[in-house]
């Protein structure tokens, strides 16, 4: 896909990828073999009819393509940009065995962007209101999907969101240069156009309890509160000034617009030499954000090698082009402060890889050597854990792994009427898997409420 010049783009927050032109899109679509048993579809968590929409694109029927996608995926402009396609749809494309797989993500993004450019806002058919209220807690991709699917079926939906802006990680985590905020705003407008109400500043469990929601007449509750609580390493120096958790660093910039301080009131510390610890999307986003804030040197410090990195391939490539320096097989063990309590260096162990662990990735082990990185800021992106506020407030809710909600295949929890999905059920995962969970839960909620009606009629 076309991208902006790395030397220019690494100084601003404008979108990096430029997307395909009409001509490029049609040409790419024409490469598709239109497989009878398409492998690509198996790789997509929401099973989009990929050959179907690609075939429309091939015929230059751009709105037709979007129409096919929308049946499966409510947020194509977002997924086309952030799905780890190389492990999903594209990763399975039959063409990939010999040559280059079809750029399915880019085509999906093109279809969604094209409609907007042409001002085609589609009208989704909506059933008559059925009068049943459903509460959706959290406005990330999981919550938005449940809300939209049920609203289309005629349900009266209210989304409750703790922050002052809806969108979940899409607004507070993923940076503007990867996923412009106006795209998320557009998708949220679409959800609202279906009649969905959104209550902001509503920390369910504190502002109102789930029991109270049921008392107010909500027939079912969907929990999609994400896995928003940062993990940390518990190494010495972790609480020095200029050690950030990635979640804080990214929230300051994405949600609070700290890069525009003092026009916006929230500050963020700009540093010269930054080490970002971790190898996932969060680490890449933090590193590239630090660069854009003016850092001269930014390191990614990761304890395994490039092969084990969980980040999207495209992000790693973009990061390297922009000048991020990767330190593989390096595990931080101490952050050193100056006499004023600010970061001045970080000591890392040099690692070597041993046999694979239970995750199938080769386990890193200390080689006995260490080195010191001269840095003035450290950003930790070593994973997320479950946020306790809501789950702990619900008595009897079955959990696993120290705070994630235990759900069935369809998204139902052990408590009748309470459903869940997305990161709070699976642990930190992906946008599209959260959406897939939302779709399944919407179906299950519909079945559940329909069965309630039957019971009452008898």
């Amino acid at each position, binding site marked *: 896909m076309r991208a902006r010049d790395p030397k220019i783009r690494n100084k601003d927050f404008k979108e990096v990828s430029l997307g395909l032109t009409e001509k490029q899109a049609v040409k790419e679509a024409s490469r598709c073999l239109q497989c009878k048993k398409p492998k690509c579809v198996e790789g997509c968590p929401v099973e989009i009819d990929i050959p179907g929409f690609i075939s429309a694109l091939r015929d230059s029927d751009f709105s037709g393509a979007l129409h096919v996608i929308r049946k499966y995926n409510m947020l194509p402009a977002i997924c086309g940009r952030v799905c780890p396609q190389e492990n999903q749809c594209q990763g399975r494309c039959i063409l990939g065995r010999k040559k280059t797989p079809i750029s399915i993500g880019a085509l999906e993004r093109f279809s969604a962007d094209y409609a907007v450019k042409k001002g085609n806002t589609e009208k989704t058919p909506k059933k008559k209101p059925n009068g049943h209220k459903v509460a959706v807690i959290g406005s990330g991709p999981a919550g938005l999907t449940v809300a939209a699917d049920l609203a289309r079926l005629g349900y009266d939906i209210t989304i409750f969101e703790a922050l002052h802006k809806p969108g979940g990680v899409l607004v507070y985590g993923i940076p503007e240069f990867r996923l412009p905020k106006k795209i998320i705003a557009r998708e949220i407008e679409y959800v609202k156009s279906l009649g969905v109400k959104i209550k902001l500043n509503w920390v369910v469990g504190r502002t109102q309890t789930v029991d109270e929601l049921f008392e107010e007449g909500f027939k079912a509750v969907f929990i999609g509160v994400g896995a928003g609580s940062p993990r940390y390493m518990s190494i010495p120096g972790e609480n020095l000034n200029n050690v950030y958790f990635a979640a*804080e660093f990214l929230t300051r910039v994405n949600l609070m617009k700290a890069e525009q301080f003092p026009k916006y009131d929230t500050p963020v510390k700009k540093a010269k030499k930054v080490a970002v610890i971790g190898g996932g999307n969060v680490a890449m986003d933090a590193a590239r954000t630090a660069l854009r804030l003016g850092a001269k040197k930014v390191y990614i410090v990761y304890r395994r090698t490039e092969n084990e990195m969980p980040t999207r391939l495209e992000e790693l490539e973009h990061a390297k082009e922009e000048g991020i320096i990767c330190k593989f097989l390096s595990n931080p063990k101490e952050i050193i402060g100056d006499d004023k309590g600010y970061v001045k260096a970080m000591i890392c162990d040099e690692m070597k890889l041993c046999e694979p662990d239970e995750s199938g990735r080769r386990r890193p082990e200390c080689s006995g050597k260490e080195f010191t990185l001269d840095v003035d800021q450290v950003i930790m992106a070593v994973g997320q854990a479950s946020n306790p506020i809501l789950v702990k407030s619900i008595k009897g809710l079955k959990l696993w792994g120290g705070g994630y909600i235990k759900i069935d295949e369809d998204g139902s929890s052990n408590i009748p009427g309470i459903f869940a999905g997305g990161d709070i059920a699976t642990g930190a995962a992906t946008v599209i898997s959260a959406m897939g969970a939302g779709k399944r839960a919407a179906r299950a909620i519909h079945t559940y409420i329909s069965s309630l009606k039957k019971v009452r009629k008898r």
Partner: protein
Amino acid sequence: MYKIIKKETVAPQVVAIEVDAPYIARHHQAGNFVVLRINERGERIPLTIADSDAKKGTITLLFQKIGKTTEALGKLNAGKAIRDIAGPLGHATPIKKYGHCVLVGGGIGAATLFPILKALKTEKNKVTTILGAREQKLIVWEDRFKEYSDEVLVTTDDGSSGRKGLVTEALKEIIESSKVKIVIAVGPIRMMQAVSELTRPYGVKTIVSLNPVMVEGTGMCGACRVNIAGKTKFACVEGPEFDAHEVDFEELVNRLGFYREEEAEAMKAFKKKKCKGHCKK
């Protein structure tokens, strides 16, 4: 939008506002705080709920104008609205029948002890309140504390009200003369630290309310982390109250100073900007 019902200046640079927030008022427990954002460009700042009225659906916030956001908040008059308020956040103060309790409030931190006082009295505790400040003018809500406490002691640095001296001196006498079961102290960090050091040798359980810099206040970012007995805790969900004897006060002081330059810059820009009427909006 959350409408300001009433505004009152309670001491120099100290303002109390009563705000319409029915759901927060209904769920407020002593020790809780809210996070608010005045307008679209505003910072999210935490303020303790100093009082609430569930029937009326209002909460009262009391703050000291010390920086950009609190200055701007202090300019909003009754009838105006605050864009965002989320809460009630943080753990509730553990309230039960203790026996003799001592509340120690430093400066305006005292006001945030008020809900705790009311809750302790509901459980029929004996409560002594010590209010300390630099001078008489900075003692807030003395009348309200007198209404509920068994005894109120005032100390000022200059002796302009009550006895001359520090809160710790008054506290020491009480601890030595009575069987104090719990001390709850809220105020400037150095005051809370001094109270903590004082009660430690006596083995009196002591709770302090910590005020690290917060961003969202719901446990999502880790900005508010504090060091409690050598372990990292998120003050917004696991606090803000902690066992005083386990707090690493030096680390907290250091972290609180992290944005000093930016705070000064924001304040300068704010003071310089001629109001085009936006601050009244």
